[in-house]
């Protein structure tokens, strides 16, 4: 027995075409992770510092601290800090008070 529903994917499997299509997607996702880590390095470091004390926290901190200091040296973390102080804090502090 096999599933009888319509398969929406093309039936042929061409490894070369497959890799050619996959490569840009993987590159985009990896670039996204790298840039996101650099722009948000201080926030990620804060999150790691909030983890429970133990080996996992130590490993994460030792892995991520160089990234955070590199990002700070390049000034990339200023982008998020600038938005936080200019708009984010205002939104967070708004409240409907009776």
């Amino acid at each position, binding site marked *: *027995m*096999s*599933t*009888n*529903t*319509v*398969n*929406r*994917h*093309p*039936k042929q*499997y061409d*490894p070369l075409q*497959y890799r050619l*299509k*996959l490569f*840009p*997607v*993987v*590159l*985009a*996702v*990896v*670039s*996204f*992770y*790298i*840039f*996101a880590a*650099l*722009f*948000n390095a201080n*926030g*990620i470091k804060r*999150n*790691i510092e909030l983890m429970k004390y133990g080996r996992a926290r130590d490993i994460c901190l030792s892995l991520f601290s160089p990234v955070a200091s590199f990002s700070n040296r390049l000034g990339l973390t200023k*982008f*998020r*800090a600038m*938005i*936080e102080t200019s*708009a*984010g804090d*205002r*939104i*967070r502090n*708004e*409240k*409907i*008070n*009776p």
Partner: protein
Amino acid sequence: MLFPTLIFAVFFIIVFSLHWVLVSRPHLWKPFMLGASYVFYGWWDWRFLGLIAACTLASHLAAMAIARNERPALRRLFLIMALVFNLGMLGFFKYYGFFTISLHQLCRGLNIPCSLPLLDILLPVGISFFTFQALSYVVDVYRRAMTPARRIIDFAVYLAFFPQLVAGPIVRARDLLPQVAHPELCRPMDIGRAAGLILMGLFKKIVIANTLATTIVEPVFAHPSAYGAPDILLGIYAYAVQIYCDFSAYSDMAIGLCLLLGFDIMLNFNAPYFARSLQEFWQRWHISLSTFIRDYLYFPMGGSKLSERKTYRNLIVSFLLAGLWHGANWTFIFWGLLHGVYRAAERFVETRMLRHPISGPIPAAGFWQRFGRPFLERFWLFHFVCLTWFFFRAETIQDAGTMLGQMTQWTKPLAPPLLIAIIITGFLTQFGDGQRMRRGWNWFARLNPVGQGLLAAIILTVILALGPAGVAPFIYFQF
């Protein structure tokens, strides 16, 4: 493990990498994806993994037994066994406490001794979603709409597939099962759409839903007597936008993550507050649930093929059960009842008084027909839906009544303009769903991959900088 968290980001990049390495070898990919999905689910509470495994095993065995038997009585017996198992599990974990408490209250009111044990049962995350998916599989096999999965692991991967496991969409087996059974045929699809949906989902959840929850909805619903009509009204508008942004954000992210993994799942929302009738609202809101209820409950009861009276009964019962699906509380049942009665009334008006259905095509004549009437219908329907949200959000029906009572107290509005702007922005995000964003996604897809990564990272950073600290759980996790 919540989508907008660091731990999920780490989990996803590992799964994403290994997925594309293993996808051309299904015999390795399937155990890997099943393991990854179980890790994702077990992150909340590993004890509930047994539940999803039992649901998988029972449903698959029932489906196999149904497919192998030609005798109608036996087929029906296996179907009933699967229904009893799945609905029994859902009923025990989700409704046992509610029904025992309600029964105790009823017995006390009637002076009848009653001694059902009260158990403190933890509700497993996403149980309503995966049991419904399992039911759709068994029922479709029974109806001969599909044949069962060739191997149990195919069905297990389908049922536990992590992007849509805990808060939907409720993807039918006949849509997703063929894709997970042949992962080697999946392609990285539509990076523009995937990125657009994920970023839009993050924006809706972090900036809109979380902000509205902490700044307006929780204060107003916690102390309604402290506020007057304008703020209560704003509070319910804020909740309407919050629940839409919260739930549709999860669906958007689930669809986007699936696309990145090469799978295509259904859209769950399509500008619901733009509906002109309640029927149209349910064609646009939580589409996977409304179509599930239509296909597996409303139609089997007879739908609209029987007498008028039975059609109204079917509508009300369907909506009542849709309400009950959302949670074990009288507020949800009342919410479902309101929707059911309104929909029945809408049908009555359509069939008896109007020549054209309310949500039908707009005749191309005159300003009133083209703009005035649709606007008024949308305005009216939105406010009816908001009225029902009072009951959906409140702890008790009395609380909802208190809030509605406060609507008669006119006071000076307290809400700052910035919060009103956030509500309006959240309302407008519904037009960012589906095909309307296609142009933006296509533009994004034409950028070079590093540019795509950079732009997406910049947008993410802006979202994180604007949202409140921490991530609240999604509202629909409790259902």
